[in-house]
């Protein structure tokens, strides 16, 4: 019994050397929004004059004709207000989220993760939350019908 167990225990012990962490994080503060038609379930391309976000003077998608928006959430707050200037309309969207920080390792550092994404208020007819976590690889967080 002992002769059988001892090599196994040693193998378990030395496999501990394979524990080094990987400096990989898929965290991002970019929210992806797909635009859909109101009447049918298909993508809609819209030409935006610009989109503004609270907490920054930068504007996004200025003069772009797009069907998918990539908008950053405010890293210093738990809610961001957006104003969409497009066609002859101005619409607004307020999203809330939780900021949670994960330390990968001292050598890799800490990365904020944005999760529990929710629509707090909007002037759009319909906004649907698809994925509540902001992460690289997530294809769609919100869906706006307009």
């Amino acid at each position, binding site marked *: *019994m*002992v002769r059988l*167990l*001892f090599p196994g*225990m040693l193998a*378990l*012990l030395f*496999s*501990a050397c394979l*524990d080094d*962490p990987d400096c990989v994080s898929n965290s991002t*503060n970019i929210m992806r929004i797909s635009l859909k038609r109101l009447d049918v379930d298909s993508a809609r391309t819209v030409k935006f004059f610009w989109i503004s*976000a609270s*907490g*920054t003077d*930068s504007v996004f998608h200025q003069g772009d004709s797009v069907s998918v928006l990539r908008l*950053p959430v*405010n*890293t*210093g707050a738990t809610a961001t207000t957006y104003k969409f200037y497009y066609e002859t309309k101005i619409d607004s969207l307020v999203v809330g989220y939780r*900021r*949670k*920080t*994960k*330390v*990968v*390792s*001292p*050598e*890799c*550092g*800490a*990365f*904020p*993760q944005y999760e529990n994404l929710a629509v707090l208020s909007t002037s759009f007819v319909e906004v649907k939350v698809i994925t509540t976590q902001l992460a690289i690889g997530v294809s769609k967080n919100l869906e706006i019908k307009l």
Partner: protein
Amino acid sequence: MCLVVACAQAQVTQSVEEDTVRVKVKKPDSLREKIYPRAVRIGTDVLVLALNTSRASGWEVHGDVDLGRHYLAVDYGGSSRKDLLATGGSYENSGSFWRAGVDINLLRKDPDRNMFFIGFRYGRASFNETVNVVSSDPFFGSLSYQLRNPSASAAWGELTTGLRVKVWKEFWMGYTARMKFAGSVSGDDNVGTYIAPGFGIVGQGITWGFNYQLFWRIPFAKPKKPPITAVPK
């Protein structure tokens, strides 16, 4: 004639088998190790103490009760650490933990009660974490903030193996290798827990531990043997 003899022999054999009672032979009591507390062994992990630095420190005390082949084992410890992060800011963690379980001695015939054992532990930790984050964003600028888990807790299981060797009188030394699994954390609402005291890095599935320990064994009173009565000639 032969047929009659064969039949008679068969009948005799059958009657002998019917008369035979199968008895399951039990081991005599003297060969079974009775379960009662023989000694308590108290020790500490010198490896953890030796590896203490200004960045990370910890301590552990270990105790077990000798019940024969089985040992009730309890560990208690604490740790604190502060790391500077490559992305800026820092990570701090401090807390305490305990483990409890059973070790089984695989060396059954050793006169000194030396041990090569396997065992199981259930562990729990309570701790707090603080992360000072420095981040920069091309749109929202640079930002520094602090996040805390004031009262997080963790639970896990361990498979253990190791040695306990009698060095001198009641002085013992040994090691314990630990495979820690099924770690779960609660109360980590603001900071995704990086390290749970006693368990290690959270989120990697299995973690590993190693203790190099020194013990002092305190034997209990030996059970009284029945008096030997002289047989008159």
